[in-house]
C-alpha cells in the first residue's frame, strides 16, 4: 500500500515523473529488441554491406564495367528478368481465379483449398524439384501419359529448358500470389457487389467495376513478392534447367565457387540487389496508385 515506494527518487513534479516513466518504458522495450537487432546487424547487415563494398574495392568501377559490357552477363540479367516476369504473369493468371474461388468457397472447399495450397508450400523445394524431374523427363510420367493417350508421338521437351524451369518456379511461387489476392478479396465487402448488382449491373460488370479494382492491392503485393523472389531463385533453375537456363544467382555462385572472383561476384550481387529493390519500389508505387484509384 505504500505507493510512495514506487517513486523512489521522490520526484516533485508529476510532469517530470511522467517523462521518467515513459523513458523507463522505452528503455525496457529497447532492451527487448536489442539482442535480435544486434544479430541482424552482425549476421545480416554487416556481412551484406561488406560484400557489396568489395565490388568497388580499390576505388574502381571495373567490375561493374565488365558486368555491363560483357554480353554474356547482360544477357543473363535480361534472361533472369524475363523469367521472373513470365513466372509472375503465369502465377497471376493461375492465382486470381483460385483466390476468387477460395473467397467464395464454403467451409469444406476452403479447408481443402488451403490444404492443397499450404502442403506443397511447406514441402521442401528439393522434394518438389525432385518430383518434377520424375514427372517431366523424356520418359517421365507426363510424357508417357501423353503418349499412352495418343496425344503426342515424340516426347515433349519439358525438362532442362525454360519450360521446366517455369513449371518448377510457378509451382513454388504460386501460393505467394494466391494468398495476398485471397486476403484482398476477403476484404471486399460482399455487400458492395450485391449493391452493384442491385443497382442493375450484371455479375461480370459488377466484378470488373467493383471487385477487381478493390482487389488490386493484393494483386500488386503478390506480384511484387513473386517477381522479387523469382529474380533471386537458385535451386529450381539449377536443377530443372539442366545448365541450359542460367539465372543471375547461379552466375554469382559460380563466380565465388569456381573462379573465386569475389569482387566481380560482389558487383553482380549489387546489380541483383538494386534490381530487386527497384522492382519492389516500383510495384509499391503502383500499389499506392491503385489504392488511391480505388479509395
Amino acid at each position, binding site marked *: 500500500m505504500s505507493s*510512495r515506494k514506487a517513486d523512489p527518487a521522490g520526484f516533485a513534479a508529476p510532469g517530470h515523473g511522467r517523462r521518467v516513466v515513459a523513458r523507463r518504458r522505452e528503455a525496457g522495450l529497447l532492451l527487448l529488441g536489442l539482442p535480435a537487432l544486434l544479430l541482424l546487424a552482425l549476421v545480416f547487415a554487416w556481412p551484406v554491406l561488406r560484400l557489396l563494398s568489395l565490388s568497388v574495392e580499390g576505388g574502381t568501377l571495373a567490375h561493374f564495367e565488365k558486368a555491363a559490357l560483357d554480353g554474356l552477363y547482360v544477357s543473363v540479367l535480361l534472361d533472369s528478368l524475363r523469367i521472373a516476369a513470365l513466372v509472375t504473369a503465369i502465377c497471376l493468371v493461375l492465382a486470381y481465379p483460385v483466390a476468387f474461388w477460395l473467397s467464395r468457397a464454403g467451409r469444406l472447399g476452403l479447408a481443402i483449398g488451403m490444404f492443397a495450397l499450404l502442403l506443397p508450400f511447406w514441402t521442401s523445394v528439393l522434394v518438389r524439384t525432385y518430383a518434377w524431374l520424375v514427372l517431366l523427363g523424356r520418359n517421365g510420367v507426363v510424357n508417357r501419359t501423353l503418349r499412352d493417350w495418343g496425344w503426342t508421338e515424340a516426347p515433349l521437351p519439358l525438362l532442362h529448358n525454360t519450360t521446366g524451369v517455369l513449371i518448377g518456379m510457378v509451382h513454388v511461387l504460386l501460393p505467394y500470389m494466391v494468398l495476398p489476392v485471397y486476403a484482398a478479396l476477403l476484404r471486399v465487402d460482399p455487400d458492395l457487389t450485391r449493391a452493384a448488382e442491385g443497382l442493375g449491373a450484371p455479375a461480370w460488370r459488377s466484378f470488373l467495376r467493383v471487385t477487381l479494382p478493390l482487389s488490386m492491392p493484393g494483386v500488386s503485393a503478390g506480384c511484387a513478392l513473386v517477381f522479387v523472389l523469382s529474380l533471386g531463385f537458385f535451386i529450381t533453375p539449377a536443377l530443372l534447367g539442366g545448365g541450359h537456363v542460367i539465372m543471375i544467382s547461379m552466375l554469382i555462385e559460380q563466380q565465388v565457387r569456381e573462379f573465386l572472383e569475389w569482387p566481380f561476384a560482389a558487383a553482380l550481387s549489387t546489380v541483383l540487389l538494386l534490381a530487386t529493390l527497384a522492382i519492389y519500389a516500383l510495384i509499391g508505387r503502383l500499389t499506392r496508385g491503385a489504392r488511391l484509384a480505388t479509395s
Partner: protein
Amino acid sequence: MQLSVTGIVRRFGTVAALGGVDLDVAEGEFLTILGPSGSGKTTLLKAIAGFEIPDEGAVTLGGLDVTLAPPRSREVGMVFQNYALFPHMSVAQNIAFPLEMRRRPRAEVRQRVEAALRLVELEGMAARLPRQLSGGQQQRVALARAVVFDPKLLLLDEPFGALDRKLRESLQLEVRRLQRRLGLTTLFITHDQEEALIMSDRIAVMDKGRIQQIGRPGDLYARPASRFVADFLGESNLLEGRAGQGVAQLPGFGAVPLPGAAAQPDGPVTLLLRPEALRVEAAAAPLPCRATGTVLETVFLGQSAKLRLRVEGGAEMLARLPLRPSDPPPPAEGVVVTLGFAPEDLHVVPQG
C-alpha cells in the same frame, strides 16, 4: 477510501486535455463524471487509475499520494468499457486473478471467488469462458473481478455502453445496490446524463478539460451553473430576455417576476425552464405567466408527449405533457394553444 484530485493538468502537445481539475470523493460516495466525448473525462480516469501521469497536480487515495505510483500498487478496481475480461481464462480464473497477483492462499482465493460470484449472481458460471456469456453476464464478471480484492476505489468507465436499454437499466440499479452494500468509494464515467441522474450521489459535469459544476443530481438539474450544464443535463428551454427591477421581459410572455430578484443585476438574462414546467391549454390557464403558441410537432412517448411549439412573437420551446391513458390526445400540429408556467420554476442561468 477517500479520493482527492488536486490541480491536475495534462497536455497533449499544445492541447490541454485536463486544464486543472480538482475533485474530492468522500468515503463510500458514488460520484459520476459526466461529459461529452473529448471532455477529458477518460484522461482524468486514466490519471486516477495510473495509466496516465499528469503534467501537474496530485492524486491522493486514502491520504497517500499516488500520482506517480504504477497502476498495480494503487489498489483500484476498474471496470473497462469493453470489460477487458481475459478471454483465455474462465470466469473463476478471471476473478481469481487479482487475488493470485497478491499471493493469497489458495483456500482464501477459492472462497472469495465464490463469494464474489454469489454477489453478482453468477454462481453456476464459474467454469465458463467469457465468450460463452451474454453481455450483461460479462459485465457482472468484470464487476466481480474489480471488487474481489477489496479495492480502495472502484472505477467504472462507461460500463453499460454496449448493453441494450432494458438490461442497462436493471444493471444500473444492481450496481448501485452493490456499491451501497460494499460501501465502495466509486467513480463512474459516462456521457449519458440519464444514467448519471439515476446512479449518483453527486455528479461532476466536465467539459473542455474542466469540471463545470459539481453537485447532487437534483441541484444540478434544477439549478445548473452554466448554459452548458443546463443543456447537457436533461432537456431545456433557454429563454433570452432583459432583466430590470426584479422582472424579466420575455418575448411573448411579457414581464415575468424573477426568482431571487434582488440579486439580479439589470441587463440581458438567460432563463432556464424545464419542458415539464411548461403547460398548455387547460393546465396553463391558472398559471401567472402565459403566452400563445403554435404546435410545430407532437411526439407521443407513452407516459408523456413532447411538443415543439413556437411562441407568438417569441422563440421555439419544448413542452413535456404527462399523459394518463384516459387523457384526450395532445394537441396536434398546427393547433394554436395557450402556454403557461409558474415563475418559481424559472432558474436564472449565470452568464458566461
